[in-house]
Protein backbone atom coordinates (compact mmCIF):
# COMPACT_ATOMS: atom_id res chain seq x y z
CA UNK A 1 0.00 0.00 0.00
CA UNK A 2 1.30 3.48 -0.79
CA UNK A 3 2.50 5.23 2.30
CA UNK A 4 0.79 8.39 3.40
CA UNK A 5 2.77 11.56 3.91
CA UNK A 6 1.75 12.83 7.30
CA UNK A 7 2.84 15.83 9.31
CA UNK A 8 2.30 15.36 13.02
CA UNK A 9 2.74 18.43 15.20
CA UNK A 10 3.16 17.07 18.70
CA UNK A 11 3.73 19.24 21.76
CA UNK A 12 5.06 21.96 19.49
CA UNK A 13 7.46 19.71 17.56
CA UNK A 14 6.89 18.89 13.92
CA UNK A 15 7.40 15.37 12.55
CA UNK A 16 7.26 14.70 8.82
CA UNK A 17 6.46 11.06 8.29
CA UNK A 18 5.51 8.56 5.61
CA UNK A 19 3.22 6.06 7.25
CA UNK A 20 1.20 3.05 6.21
CA UNK A 21 -2.47 4.10 6.12
CA UNK A 22 -3.33 1.56 8.83
CA UNK A 23 -1.07 3.10 11.50
CA UNK A 24 -3.10 4.58 14.33
CA UNK A 25 -2.23 7.93 15.85
CA UNK A 26 -1.56 6.04 19.10
CA UNK A 27 1.00 3.79 17.43
CA UNK A 28 2.63 6.68 15.55
CA UNK A 29 2.97 8.75 18.72
CA UNK A 30 4.46 5.89 20.73
CA UNK A 31 6.86 5.03 17.90
CA UNK A 32 8.00 8.67 17.96
CA UNK A 33 8.74 8.31 21.66
CA UNK A 34 5.64 9.93 23.13
CA UNK A 35 5.17 7.00 25.46
CA UNK A 36 3.18 9.05 27.95
CA UNK A 37 0.33 8.20 25.56
CA UNK A 38 -0.71 4.82 26.94
CA UNK A 39 -2.00 1.87 24.98
CA UNK A 40 -4.94 0.42 26.87
CA UNK A 41 -7.93 -1.20 25.23
CA UNK A 42 -7.62 -0.08 21.59
CA UNK A 43 -11.41 0.02 21.29
CA UNK A 44 -12.12 3.47 22.68
CA UNK A 45 -13.31 2.29 26.07
CA UNK A 46 -10.52 3.25 28.47
CA UNK A 47 -9.18 6.68 27.47
CA UNK A 48 -5.57 5.88 28.44
CA UNK A 49 -4.46 6.99 24.96
CA UNK A 50 -6.29 10.33 25.06
CA UNK A 51 -4.59 13.32 23.44
CA UNK A 52 -5.74 16.78 22.46
CA UNK A 53 -6.36 17.03 18.73
CA UNK A 54 -6.75 20.72 17.87
CA UNK A 55 -7.85 21.26 21.45
CA UNK A 56 -10.39 18.43 21.54
CA UNK A 57 -9.80 15.33 23.64
CA UNK A 58 -9.90 12.13 21.56
CA UNK A 59 -8.81 8.51 21.87
CA UNK A 60 -5.65 8.29 19.75
CA UNK A 61 -6.33 4.55 19.22
CA UNK A 62 -9.43 5.57 17.26
CA UNK A 63 -7.71 8.05 14.99
CA UNK A 64 -5.60 6.93 12.07
CA UNK A 65 -2.35 8.87 11.96
CA UNK A 66 -3.11 10.41 8.55
CA UNK A 67 -6.42 11.72 9.93
CA UNK A 68 -4.32 13.91 12.26
CA UNK A 69 -2.24 15.31 9.40
CA UNK A 70 -1.41 18.93 10.18
CA UNK A 71 -3.39 18.99 13.41
CA UNK A 72 -2.02 20.33 16.66
CA UNK A 73 -1.53 17.37 19.00
CA UNK A 74 -0.86 17.77 22.70
CA UNK A 75 -0.04 14.86 24.99
CA UNK A 76 0.18 14.84 28.76
CA UNK A 77 3.95 15.42 28.55
CA UNK A 78 3.29 18.47 26.39
CA UNK A 79 1.36 20.13 29.20
CA UNK A 80 4.22 20.08 31.67
CA UNK A 81 7.32 18.30 32.83
CA UNK A 82 8.56 17.00 36.19
CA UNK A 83 10.39 20.30 36.70
CA UNK A 84 7.57 22.45 35.50
CA UNK A 85 4.34 20.53 35.95
CA UNK A 86 1.07 21.91 34.67
CA UNK A 87 -1.30 22.92 37.50
CA UNK A 88 -3.53 19.98 36.52
CA UNK A 89 -0.64 17.54 36.85
CA UNK A 90 0.39 19.18 40.12
CA UNK A 91 -3.14 18.82 41.47
CA UNK A 92 -3.26 15.10 40.57
CA UNK A 93 0.02 14.62 42.45
CA UNK A 94 -0.95 16.76 45.44
CA UNK A 95 -4.29 15.02 45.94
CA UNK A 96 -2.81 11.56 45.35
CA UNK A 97 -5.15 10.91 42.45
CA UNK A 98 -2.79 8.30 41.05
CA UNK A 99 -2.09 4.74 41.98
CA UNK A 100 -0.52 2.75 39.17
CA UNK A 101 -0.66 5.91 37.05
CA UNK A 102 -1.58 4.23 33.79
CA UNK A 103 -4.82 6.13 33.35
CA UNK A 104 -3.38 9.44 34.56
CA UNK A 105 -2.10 10.91 31.26
CA UNK A 106 -5.53 10.40 29.72
CA UNK A 107 -7.28 11.76 32.80
CA UNK A 108 -5.07 14.86 32.67
CA UNK A 109 -5.86 15.37 28.97
CA UNK A 110 -9.63 15.09 29.52
CA UNK A 111 -9.31 17.48 32.46
CA UNK A 112 -7.42 19.97 30.31
CA UNK A 113 -10.10 19.83 27.61
CA UNK A 114 -12.79 20.33 30.25
CA UNK A 115 -11.17 23.26 32.07
CA UNK A 116 -10.33 25.04 28.82
CA UNK A 117 -14.04 25.15 28.05
CA UNK A 118 -15.49 25.26 31.52
CA UNK A 119 -13.18 26.76 34.15
CA UNK A 120 -15.57 26.11 37.03
CA UNK A 121 -17.22 22.73 36.45
CA UNK A 122 -19.66 21.07 38.83
CA UNK A 123 -18.92 17.57 40.08
CA UNK A 124 -21.46 16.19 37.60
CA UNK A 125 -19.75 18.03 34.75
CA UNK A 126 -16.38 16.67 35.84
CA UNK A 127 -17.71 13.10 35.94
CA UNK A 128 -19.24 13.58 32.50
CA UNK A 129 -16.00 14.98 31.06
CA UNK A 130 -14.02 12.03 32.47
CA UNK A 131 -16.63 9.50 31.36
CA UNK A 132 -14.30 8.13 28.69
CA UNK A 133 -11.41 7.56 31.09
CA UNK A 134 -11.33 4.42 33.20
CA UNK A 135 -9.29 3.98 36.39
CA UNK A 136 -9.07 0.39 37.59
CA UNK A 137 -6.97 1.00 40.72
CA UNK A 138 -8.34 3.45 43.09
CA UNK A 139 -11.71 4.79 42.09
CA UNK A 140 -12.65 8.23 41.09
CA UNK A 141 -13.02 10.18 44.35
CA UNK A 142 -9.53 11.61 44.40
CA UNK A 143 -9.49 12.15 40.66
CA UNK A 144 -12.60 14.34 40.94
CA UNK A 145 -10.95 16.15 43.84
CA UNK A 146 -7.81 16.74 41.76
CA UNK A 147 -9.86 18.28 38.95
CA UNK A 148 -11.61 20.55 41.45
CA UNK A 149 -8.28 21.58 42.95
CA UNK A 150 -6.78 22.25 39.51
CA UNK A 151 -9.84 24.31 38.55
CA UNK A 152 -9.60 26.49 41.64
CA UNK A 153 -5.83 26.97 41.25
CA UNK A 154 -6.18 27.92 37.59
CA UNK A 155 -8.98 30.32 38.41
CA UNK A 156 -6.93 31.97 41.15
CA UNK A 157 -4.05 32.25 38.72
CA UNK A 158 -6.19 33.94 36.09
CA UNK A 159 -7.58 36.34 38.66
CA UNK A 160 -4.07 37.20 39.85
CA UNK A 161 -2.95 37.87 36.28
CA UNK A 162 -5.98 40.05 35.64
CA UNK A 163 -5.25 42.01 38.81
CA UNK A 164 -1.69 42.81 37.78
CA UNK A 165 -0.75 46.41 36.98
CA UNK A 166 -0.58 47.04 33.25
CA UNK A 167 3.22 47.36 33.16
CA UNK A 168 3.87 43.94 34.65
CA UNK A 169 1.12 42.42 32.52
CA UNK A 170 3.04 43.55 29.45
CA UNK A 171 6.15 41.91 30.86
CA UNK A 172 4.24 38.71 31.50
CA UNK A 173 3.07 38.65 27.90
CA UNK A 174 6.67 38.79 26.79
CA UNK A 175 7.43 35.89 29.11
CA UNK A 176 4.51 34.01 27.64
CA UNK A 177 5.90 34.36 24.15
CA UNK A 178 9.27 33.00 25.12
CA UNK A 179 7.89 29.84 26.64
CA UNK A 180 8.76 26.51 25.10
CA UNK A 181 6.17 25.70 22.44
CA UNK A 182 5.12 22.49 24.15
CA UNK A 183 3.58 24.28 27.08
CA UNK A 184 0.10 25.34 26.29
CA UNK A 185 -2.86 26.85 27.93
CA UNK A 186 -1.78 28.19 31.26
CA UNK A 187 -2.37 31.82 31.97
CA UNK A 188 0.94 32.38 33.62
CA UNK A 189 3.16 29.50 34.65
CA UNK A 190 6.13 31.72 35.36
CA UNK A 191 4.65 33.47 38.35
CA UNK A 192 2.77 30.43 39.61
CA UNK A 193 5.75 28.93 41.30
CA UNK A 194 6.13 32.00 43.49
CA UNK A 195 2.68 31.53 44.98
CA UNK A 196 1.17 28.72 46.97
Amino acid at each position, binding site marked *: *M*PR*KKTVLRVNGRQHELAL*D*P*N*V*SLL*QALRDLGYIDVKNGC*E*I*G*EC*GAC*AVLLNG*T*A*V*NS*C*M*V*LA*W*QANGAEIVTNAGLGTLDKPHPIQEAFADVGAVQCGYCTPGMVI*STKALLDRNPDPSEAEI*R*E*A*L*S*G*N*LCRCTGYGQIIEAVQLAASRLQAERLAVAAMPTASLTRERVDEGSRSPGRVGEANPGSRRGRT
Partner: protein
Amino acid sequence: MSLPQFEVVQPATLGEALRILSEVKDAAPIAGGTNLIVDMRAGTHRPRMVVDVAALRDLHGIEVTDTEVIIGAATTIAEMLESPILAKHATVLVKACSSFANALIRNRATVGGNLVTAAPCSDTAPALLTLDAEVKLASVRGMRRVPLEKFLVNAFSTIRRSDELLVSVRFRIPSATATGAFRKMGLRKVSCMAKVDVAVMLDGDSAGRCTSARIAIAAASPVAVRARAAEAALVGKALTPEAIAAAAALAARAAAPRARSEYKLRVVEALARRLLAEAALALTRGGSSA
Protein backbone atom coordinates in the same frame (compact mmCIF):
# COMPACT_ATOMS: atom_id res chain seq x y z
CA MET B 1 -2.58 -4.60 17.71
CA SER B 2 -2.24 -3.26 14.19
CA LEU B 3 -4.93 -2.98 11.60
CA PRO B 4 -4.98 -4.90 8.33
CA GLN B 5 -3.55 -3.05 5.34
CA PHE B 6 -5.77 -0.84 3.25
CA GLU B 7 -5.42 1.97 0.77
CA VAL B 8 -6.67 5.44 1.60
CA VAL B 9 -8.00 8.15 -0.69
CA GLN B 10 -8.95 11.67 0.29
CA PRO B 11 -11.33 13.10 -2.29
CA ALA B 12 -11.57 16.88 -2.32
CA THR B 13 -15.22 17.02 -3.36
CA LEU B 14 -18.40 15.07 -2.85
CA GLY B 15 -18.50 14.31 -6.58
CA GLU B 16 -15.04 12.78 -6.47
CA ALA B 17 -15.96 10.72 -3.41
CA LEU B 18 -19.07 9.40 -5.15
CA ARG B 19 -17.09 8.53 -8.28
CA ILE B 20 -14.64 6.50 -6.19
CA LEU B 21 -17.46 4.73 -4.37
CA SER B 22 -19.01 3.85 -7.73
CA GLU B 23 -15.76 2.53 -9.19
CA VAL B 24 -14.22 0.71 -6.25
CA LYS B 25 -16.33 -2.19 -5.08
CA ASP B 26 -14.71 -2.70 -1.74
CA ALA B 27 -14.42 0.87 -0.45
CA ALA B 28 -15.51 2.05 2.98
CA PRO B 29 -16.24 5.70 3.73
CA ILE B 30 -14.66 6.97 6.94
CA ALA B 31 -15.60 10.07 8.92
CA GLY B 32 -15.02 9.70 12.67
CA GLY B 33 -13.93 6.10 12.32
CA THR B 34 -15.05 5.06 15.80
CA ASN B 35 -16.87 2.04 14.37
CA LEU B 36 -14.76 1.36 11.29
CA ILE B 37 -11.36 1.44 13.04
CA VAL B 38 -12.56 -0.92 15.77
CA ASP B 39 -14.09 -3.29 13.20
CA MET B 40 -10.97 -3.25 11.02
CA ARG B 41 -8.76 -3.90 14.03
CA ALA B 42 -10.99 -6.81 15.04
CA GLY B 43 -10.86 -8.11 11.47
CA THR B 44 -14.64 -8.05 11.07
CA HIS B 45 -14.50 -5.44 8.31
CA ARG B 46 -11.68 -5.56 5.75
CA PRO B 47 -12.19 -2.88 3.11
CA ARG B 48 -9.57 -2.68 0.38
CA MET B 49 -9.90 1.08 0.29
CA VAL B 50 -10.94 3.67 2.86
CA VAL B 51 -12.48 6.87 1.49
CA ASP B 52 -11.97 9.84 3.78
CA VAL B 53 -15.18 11.87 3.76
CA ALA B 54 -14.54 13.73 7.02
CA ALA B 55 -13.47 16.95 5.33
CA LEU B 56 -16.24 17.12 2.69
CA ARG B 57 -18.12 20.35 3.22
CA ASP B 58 -21.46 18.91 2.06
CA LEU B 59 -21.38 16.57 5.06
CA HIS B 60 -20.97 19.27 7.69
CA GLY B 61 -23.04 21.76 9.57
CA ILE B 62 -26.39 21.97 11.32
CA GLU B 63 -28.79 24.27 9.50
CA VAL B 64 -32.33 25.37 10.03
CA THR B 65 -34.65 26.52 7.25
CA ASP B 66 -38.22 27.81 7.62
CA THR B 67 -39.48 24.26 7.85
CA GLU B 68 -36.61 21.88 8.44
CA VAL B 69 -33.49 21.11 10.44
CA ILE B 70 -30.69 19.59 8.37
CA ILE B 71 -27.69 17.88 9.96
CA GLY B 72 -24.63 17.01 7.89
CA ALA B 73 -23.75 13.33 8.15
CA ALA B 74 -20.20 14.02 9.37
CA THR B 75 -21.43 16.17 12.26
CA THR B 76 -20.01 14.78 15.48
CA ILE B 77 -22.16 13.83 18.44
CA ALA B 78 -20.30 16.52 20.45
CA GLU B 79 -21.21 19.15 17.86
CA MET B 80 -24.85 18.12 18.08
CA LEU B 81 -24.72 18.41 21.87
CA GLU B 82 -23.55 21.99 21.55
CA SER B 83 -25.86 23.07 18.75
CA PRO B 84 -28.23 25.93 19.68
CA ILE B 85 -30.45 24.85 16.75
CA LEU B 86 -30.92 21.37 18.17
CA ALA B 87 -31.29 22.73 21.71
CA LYS B 88 -34.19 24.81 20.40
CA HIS B 89 -35.86 22.36 18.05
CA ALA B 90 -34.89 18.81 19.03
CA THR B 91 -34.08 18.32 22.70
CA VAL B 92 -35.00 14.65 22.29
CA LEU B 93 -31.99 14.29 20.00
CA VAL B 94 -29.74 16.30 22.32
CA LYS B 95 -30.71 13.98 25.19
CA ALA B 96 -29.85 10.97 23.06
CA CYS B 97 -26.48 12.51 22.23
CA SER B 98 -25.74 13.21 25.89
CA SER B 99 -26.06 9.51 26.68
CA PHE B 100 -23.98 8.48 23.66
CA ALA B 101 -20.87 6.41 24.59
CA ASN B 102 -18.52 8.75 26.44
CA ALA B 103 -17.03 12.21 26.16
CA LEU B 104 -13.98 11.10 24.14
CA ILE B 105 -15.96 9.05 21.61
CA ARG B 106 -18.53 11.83 21.18
CA ASN B 107 -15.75 14.07 19.88
CA ARG B 108 -15.14 11.69 16.94
CA ALA B 109 -18.31 9.68 16.31
CA THR B 110 -20.70 11.15 13.76
CA VAL B 111 -24.46 10.98 13.31
CA GLY B 112 -24.04 9.59 9.80
CA GLY B 113 -21.74 6.86 11.04
CA ASN B 114 -24.13 5.96 13.81
CA LEU B 115 -27.04 5.62 11.35
CA VAL B 116 -25.12 3.83 8.59
CA THR B 117 -23.70 1.30 11.05
CA ALA B 118 -27.29 0.55 12.10
CA ALA B 119 -26.29 -1.11 15.34
CA PRO B 120 -29.33 -2.29 17.32
CA CYS B 121 -28.23 0.00 20.17
CA SER B 122 -27.83 3.20 18.13
CA ASP B 123 -28.76 6.13 20.37
CA THR B 124 -29.36 8.69 17.64
CA ALA B 125 -31.72 6.44 15.64
CA PRO B 126 -34.64 6.28 18.11
CA ALA B 127 -34.48 10.04 18.75
CA LEU B 128 -34.41 10.76 15.02
CA LEU B 129 -37.25 8.28 14.45
CA THR B 130 -39.48 10.28 16.81
CA LEU B 131 -38.58 13.36 14.74
CA ASP B 132 -39.73 11.48 11.61
CA ALA B 133 -36.29 12.09 10.12
CA GLU B 134 -35.25 11.45 6.55
CA VAL B 135 -31.78 10.60 5.31
CA LYS B 136 -30.29 11.88 2.07
CA LEU B 137 -28.21 9.39 0.09
CA ALA B 138 -26.01 10.49 -2.78
CA SER B 139 -24.37 8.50 -5.55
CA VAL B 140 -23.19 9.16 -9.10
CA ARG B 141 -26.70 8.12 -10.10
CA GLY B 142 -28.21 11.01 -8.13
CA MET B 143 -29.74 11.79 -4.78
CA ARG B 144 -32.55 10.10 -2.93
CA ARG B 145 -34.31 10.93 0.28
CA VAL B 146 -35.55 8.06 2.39
CA PRO B 147 -37.42 8.03 5.70
CA LEU B 148 -35.04 6.83 8.41
CA GLU B 149 -37.58 4.17 9.33
CA LYS B 150 -37.20 2.65 5.84
CA PHE B 151 -33.44 3.23 5.77
CA LEU B 152 -32.93 0.97 8.79
CA VAL B 153 -33.58 -2.58 7.65
CA ASN B 154 -32.10 -4.94 10.19
CA ALA B 155 -29.19 -5.25 12.61
CA PHE B 156 -26.17 -3.66 10.86
CA SER B 157 -28.15 -3.48 7.66
CA THR B 158 -29.58 -0.49 5.81
CA ILE B 159 -30.86 0.15 2.29
CA ARG B 160 -27.68 2.09 1.48
CA ARG B 161 -26.06 0.67 -1.65
CA SER B 162 -22.29 0.33 -1.65
CA ASP B 163 -21.88 3.28 -4.05
CA GLU B 164 -24.04 5.57 -1.92
CA LEU B 165 -22.93 8.03 0.72
CA LEU B 166 -25.15 9.27 3.52
CA VAL B 167 -24.95 13.05 3.12
CA SER B 168 -27.38 14.44 5.67
CA VAL B 169 -30.30 13.74 7.92
CA ARG B 170 -33.23 16.12 8.14
CA PHE B 171 -36.53 16.52 9.92
CA ARG B 172 -39.39 18.98 9.97
CA ILE B 173 -39.22 21.49 12.80
CA PRO B 174 -41.56 20.10 15.46
CA SER B 175 -44.53 22.26 16.46
CA ALA B 176 -43.86 24.76 19.22
CA THR B 177 -45.93 22.73 21.66
CA ALA B 178 -44.48 19.29 20.84
CA THR B 179 -42.45 17.79 23.62
CA GLY B 180 -39.95 14.97 23.52
CA ALA B 181 -38.24 12.68 26.01
CA PHE B 182 -35.47 10.10 25.79
CA ARG B 183 -34.07 7.53 28.22
CA LYS B 184 -31.31 5.01 27.91
CA MET B 185 -31.03 1.94 30.11
CA GLY B 186 -27.55 0.44 30.18
CA LEU B 187 -25.29 -1.48 32.51
CA ARG B 188 -23.52 1.72 33.59
CA LYS B 189 -24.35 5.39 33.59
CA VAL B 190 -21.84 6.19 30.86
CA SER B 191 -19.69 4.56 28.22
CA CYS B 192 -22.02 1.65 27.73
CA MET B 193 -24.13 0.31 24.94
CA ALA B 194 -27.85 0.71 25.42
CA LYS B 195 -29.73 -2.28 26.74
CA VAL B 196 -32.89 -0.37 25.92
CA ASP B 197 -33.43 3.12 24.48
CA VAL B 198 -36.87 4.69 24.35
CA ALA B 199 -37.66 8.05 22.77
CA VAL B 200 -41.07 9.71 22.65
CA MET B 201 -42.52 12.84 21.12
CA LEU B 202 -46.00 14.08 21.96
CA ASP B 203 -48.12 16.98 20.82
CA GLY B 204 -51.52 18.02 22.09
CA ASP B 205 -54.28 20.60 21.75
CA SER B 206 -55.54 23.08 24.32
CA ALA B 207 -58.19 20.61 25.45
CA GLY B 208 -55.46 18.22 26.57
CA ARG B 209 -55.99 15.75 23.74
CA CYS B 210 -53.04 14.10 22.06
CA THR B 211 -52.76 15.27 18.46
CA SER B 212 -49.56 13.47 17.59
CA ALA B 213 -47.51 10.71 19.20
CA ARG B 214 -44.27 9.10 18.16
CA ILE B 215 -42.53 6.39 20.11
CA ALA B 216 -39.28 4.72 19.10
CA ILE B 217 -37.31 1.90 20.67
CA ALA B 218 -33.70 0.80 20.19
CA ALA B 219 -31.64 -2.15 21.41
CA ALA B 220 -34.75 -4.21 22.08
CA SER B 221 -35.10 -5.41 18.49
CA PRO B 222 -32.62 -6.04 15.67
CA VAL B 223 -32.75 -2.38 14.68
CA ALA B 224 -34.45 0.73 16.05
CA VAL B 225 -38.21 0.73 15.40
CA ARG B 226 -41.27 2.93 15.78
CA ALA B 227 -44.06 1.62 17.99
CA ARG B 228 -46.85 2.48 15.55
CA ALA B 229 -49.70 0.71 17.33
CA ALA B 230 -48.86 2.47 20.58
CA GLU B 231 -48.77 5.80 18.78
CA ALA B 232 -52.14 5.20 17.12
CA ALA B 233 -53.66 4.31 20.48
CA LEU B 234 -52.79 7.74 21.88
CA VAL B 235 -53.77 10.07 19.06
CA GLY B 236 -57.13 11.76 19.67
CA LYS B 237 -57.25 10.66 23.30
CA ALA B 238 -56.79 12.57 26.52
CA LEU B 239 -53.37 11.76 28.00
CA THR B 240 -54.75 10.03 31.07
CA PRO B 241 -52.79 7.54 33.16
CA GLU B 242 -54.92 4.77 31.64
CA ALA B 243 -54.21 5.87 28.07
CA ILE B 244 -50.51 6.12 28.82
CA ALA B 245 -50.44 2.68 30.45
CA ALA B 246 -52.24 1.14 27.47
CA ALA B 247 -49.86 2.79 25.00
CA ALA B 248 -46.80 1.68 26.99
CA ALA B 249 -48.05 -1.92 26.93
CA LEU B 250 -48.48 -1.67 23.15
CA ALA B 251 -45.00 -0.16 22.82
CA ALA B 252 -43.52 -3.27 24.41
CA ARG B 253 -45.19 -5.35 21.70
CA ALA B 254 -43.28 -3.44 19.05
CA ALA B 255 -40.03 -4.67 20.58
CA ALA B 256 -38.56 -8.00 19.58
CA PRO B 257 -35.66 -8.82 21.87
CA ARG B 258 -33.75 -12.08 21.67
CA ALA B 259 -35.21 -14.85 23.81
CA ARG B 260 -32.61 -14.51 26.53
CA SER B 261 -33.41 -10.80 26.80
CA GLU B 262 -37.13 -11.07 27.38
CA TYR B 263 -36.74 -8.76 30.35
CA LYS B 264 -36.38 -5.93 27.83
CA LEU B 265 -40.10 -6.09 27.11
CA ARG B 266 -40.78 -4.99 30.65
CA VAL B 267 -38.08 -2.33 30.46
CA VAL B 268 -39.57 -0.91 27.26
CA GLU B 269 -43.00 -0.78 28.84
CA ALA B 270 -41.71 0.91 31.99
CA LEU B 271 -39.59 3.45 30.13
CA ALA B 272 -42.39 4.21 27.66
CA ARG B 273 -44.80 4.76 30.54
CA ARG B 274 -42.40 7.10 32.33
CA LEU B 275 -41.42 9.05 29.23
CA LEU B 276 -44.99 9.42 28.01
CA ALA B 277 -45.98 10.66 31.45
CA GLU B 278 -43.07 13.10 31.44
CA ALA B 279 -43.94 14.41 27.99
CA ALA B 280 -47.65 14.59 28.78
CA LEU B 281 -46.94 16.61 31.89
CA ALA B 282 -44.67 18.98 29.96
CA LEU B 283 -47.46 19.40 27.38
CA THR B 284 -50.00 20.44 30.01
CA ARG B 285 -47.49 22.98 31.25
CA GLY B 286 -47.71 24.70 27.91
CA GLY B 287 -45.25 22.51 26.06
CA SER B 288 -41.53 22.73 25.95
CA SER B 289 -39.39 22.20 22.92
CA ALA B 290 -39.20 18.86 21.24
